[in-house]
């Protein structure tokens, strides 16, 4: 069995006798942990430590990092996206995409953690409550500040956050006053909704008030199919 030291050498197990030579699939690099010869994966794992599949998923549930780390990372994400787009709508779309991929994974994680008591949400109000409390609490340690239904449109709902954490360090210059970096959080919400089969679009809008200058409203617009389903369910 190959051991850790051979992982660093270019040596390929070779013997002129074809019955002895270890099988080497054509597309692998020369370094190979032969323990995994039976699987189709060619990934190497360290000999002593286990892989991520041996770690319990709840291990990092309560762990915390500094808010500054997230702020710097998010800021860099915004700057990188800014270089590759022209226009604020595009920038918000990129942030939305980032949030989307995070939301997908977060949804899986949260539902798994709920375990047996996890309920599949079928009503609009149910899924929105899930987002307002569970999802929000898991990322921001506090529930969202409000949930409202639009009076004019059947398919529009509004989720209110008085002070979105992602915006706390961002001061938008005047020429980009349309930008709201909470598009990132909108992406998370959209992914959770999509994953629970409530397709729609989520956008972030800032509505500063006297007391709450950073207040943001996430406008959730559901697809036709969802509204129809909701009315059928009664």
């Amino acid at each position, binding site marked *: 069995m190959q051991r850790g030291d051979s992982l660093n050498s270019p040596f390929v197990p070779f013997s002129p006798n074809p019955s002895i030579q270890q099988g080497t699939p054509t597309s692998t690099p020369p370094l190979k942990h032969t323990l995994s010869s039976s699987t189709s994966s060619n990934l190497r794992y360290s000999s002593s430590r286990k892989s991520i599949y041996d770690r319990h998923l709840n291990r990092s549930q309560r762990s915390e990092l500094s808010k*500054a780390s997230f702020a710097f990372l998010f800021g860099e994400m915004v700057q990188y996206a800014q270089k590759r787009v022209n226009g604020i709508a595009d920038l918000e779309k990129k942030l939305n995409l980032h949030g989307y*991929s995070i939301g997908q994974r977060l949804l899986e994680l949260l539902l798994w953690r709920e375990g047996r008591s996890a309920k599949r949400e079928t009503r609009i109000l149910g899924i929105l409550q899930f987002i307002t409390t569970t999802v929000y609490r898991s990322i921001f340690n506090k529930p969202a500040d409000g949930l409202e239904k639009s009076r004019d449109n059947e398919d529009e709902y509004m989720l209110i956050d008085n002070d979105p954490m992602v915006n706390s360090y961002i001061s938008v210059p005047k020429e980009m006053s349309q930008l709201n970096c909470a598009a990132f959080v909108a992406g998370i919400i959209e992914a959770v909704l999509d994953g629970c089969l409530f397709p729609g679009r989520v956008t972030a809008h800032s509505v500063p008030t006297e007391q709450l200058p950073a207040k943001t409203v996430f406008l959730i617009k559901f697809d036709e199919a969802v509204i129809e389903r909701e009315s059928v369910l009664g």
Partner: protein
Amino acid sequence: MSATKAARVGEDVWKTRIDKVNAELVTLTYGSIVAQLCRDFEGDYLEVNKQLEKMGYNIGLRLIEDFLAKTNMGKCANFRETAETIAKVGFKVFLNITPTVTNWTTDNKQFSLIFEENPLADFVELPDDGRAQNELWYSNMLCGVLRGALEMVQMQVDAHFVGDILRGNEVTEMRVTLVRIIDDELPPGED
């Protein structure tokens, strides 16, 4: 400053002066950034490494100010002290981890940081396309952060990974080398 004192300062600042956020959010955000880079550069992992390092550099320039503001530390006397401060205070304050400092060279200009745990790579498995495990350093942003941060305090360093658990190595190890001390800049016209 000795290692124990640095550790104590790190713990102290972490407990009292840091606003905290859910670690998984940071993990997922970092993952999203790396994934986006891999898509943008269409699998050219060497380019992704470079880009991660550059982004880390930009972060490092800002991070050092926040670090100095939070920990109230002045300049370190020598490179050994710098290494201890980075490992016990710097990483503790931002990522809540304390890598170990080892493998000093005799001229005290190079050391290794061994990471027992890496919150940025918590749920990660590298893609199985035969190249990623050979070319991509997933946490390369940390190298850039160190380079940027130390440059703001007049030290030019080179930092790179020499091992990563995600790539099948035994430990995640980063090698940091002091290239030179940068002198203070003089205003134009003066000498």
